[in-house]
């Protein structure tokens, strides 16, 4: 059993007070490893909350640099970070909150050549990617490696998220078979997004990671949680694993990751 210092007991006291977390749960967080894919609108709040929670190792993968137009919602970055790699500015913000957390930065594209070896080093993965090829790549890699993950998506005033336990609950491909045609896809840069919506969705994903590591409660599996912040309505759509899912169905056709289109790891 880990010895907590006085400072740690103080820092994590509000976790330790929770019956579902306690000292044991906090220890599990401190032994936990989470990979955040994308240091953008979703990855920013996730990374900050995971650091604040004292998750032992937080990996963050992104190839992008900070742009002024990111700052409306990507709260891990500051005006002074413009032009800097997002993984570096996110890591600085995380270490400023909690120097105990080991932040591992991966300043690179995520693609079929590196995704499996990356995700297998972690207990849980957060998909905060902005593009569908990367979302499908993360899904397939996590399914093949048996690593649980949280899917997240946002657009305009809406968001959606689901947690996937490989082989146990519906995966992203059970619901969304393959990436939509690129010309049909509205991105946040074209369609816009309310900054706080990224925070609403990202903090749900962070909570799922913390619940997974501590074992507290019931994960957002076999449900797609979606919300519309304009009406401020939430809905949980029941889902189930699909027998004909190409990656986790009875006769899977996907047994290796492939770059099913241009792959990026921005978010």
């Amino acid at each position, binding site marked *: 059993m880990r010895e907590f210092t006085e400072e740690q007991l103080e820092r994590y006291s509000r976790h330790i007070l929770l019956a579902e977390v306690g000292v044991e749960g906090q220890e599990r967080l401190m032994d936990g490893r989470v990979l955040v894919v994308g240091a953008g609108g979703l990855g920013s709040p996730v990374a900050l909350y995971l650091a604040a929670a004292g998750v032992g190792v937080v990996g963050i993968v992104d190839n992008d640099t900070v742009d002024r137009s990111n700052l409306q919602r990507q709260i891990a970055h500051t005006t002074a970070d413009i032009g800097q790699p997002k993984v570096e500015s996110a890591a600085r913000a995380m270490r400023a909150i909690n120097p105990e957390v080991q932040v591992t930065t991966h300043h690179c594209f995520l693609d079929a050549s590196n995704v499996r070896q990356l995700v297998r080093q972690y207990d849980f993965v957060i998909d905060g990617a902005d593009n569908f090829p990367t979302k499908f790549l993360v899904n397939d890699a996590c399914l093949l490696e048996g690593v649980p993950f949280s899917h997240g998506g946002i657009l305009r005033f809406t968001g959606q998220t689901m947690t996937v336990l490989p082989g146990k609950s519906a995966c992203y491909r059970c619901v969304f078979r393959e990436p939509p045609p690129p010309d049909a896809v*509205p991105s946040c840069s074209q369609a816009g997004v309310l900054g706080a919506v990224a925070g609403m969705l990202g903090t749900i994903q962070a909570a799922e990671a913390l619940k997974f590591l501590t074992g507290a409660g019931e994960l957002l599996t076999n449900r797609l949680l979606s919300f519309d912040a304009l009406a401020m309505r939430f809905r949980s*759509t029941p889902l189930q694993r*699909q027998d004909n899912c190409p990656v986790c169905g009875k006769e899977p056709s996907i047994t290796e990751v492939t770059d099913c289109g241009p792959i990026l790891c921005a978010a």
Partner: protein
Amino acid sequence: MRITLNGEPAEFPVERLTVTELLRSQKVEAPEMVSVQLNGTIIYSAKYNDTVIADQDEVDFLYFMGGGADRLTGGRQQ
């Protein structure tokens, strides 16, 4: 017929509709950005024309939703 559409009761003055017709009646602008679940089963888009929705069915439209990036970056963007 009466169905449950996205968790809400919905009534149509016909006895049956194909998925394609339902998407059209709901003014879904980009059907390629929607996954349709009928009574717990995800319907392939290739089967939208042949899949019939009947009384008491439960239908969900699940929208593709990306992330929070301002732009897609790098040399391999689409």
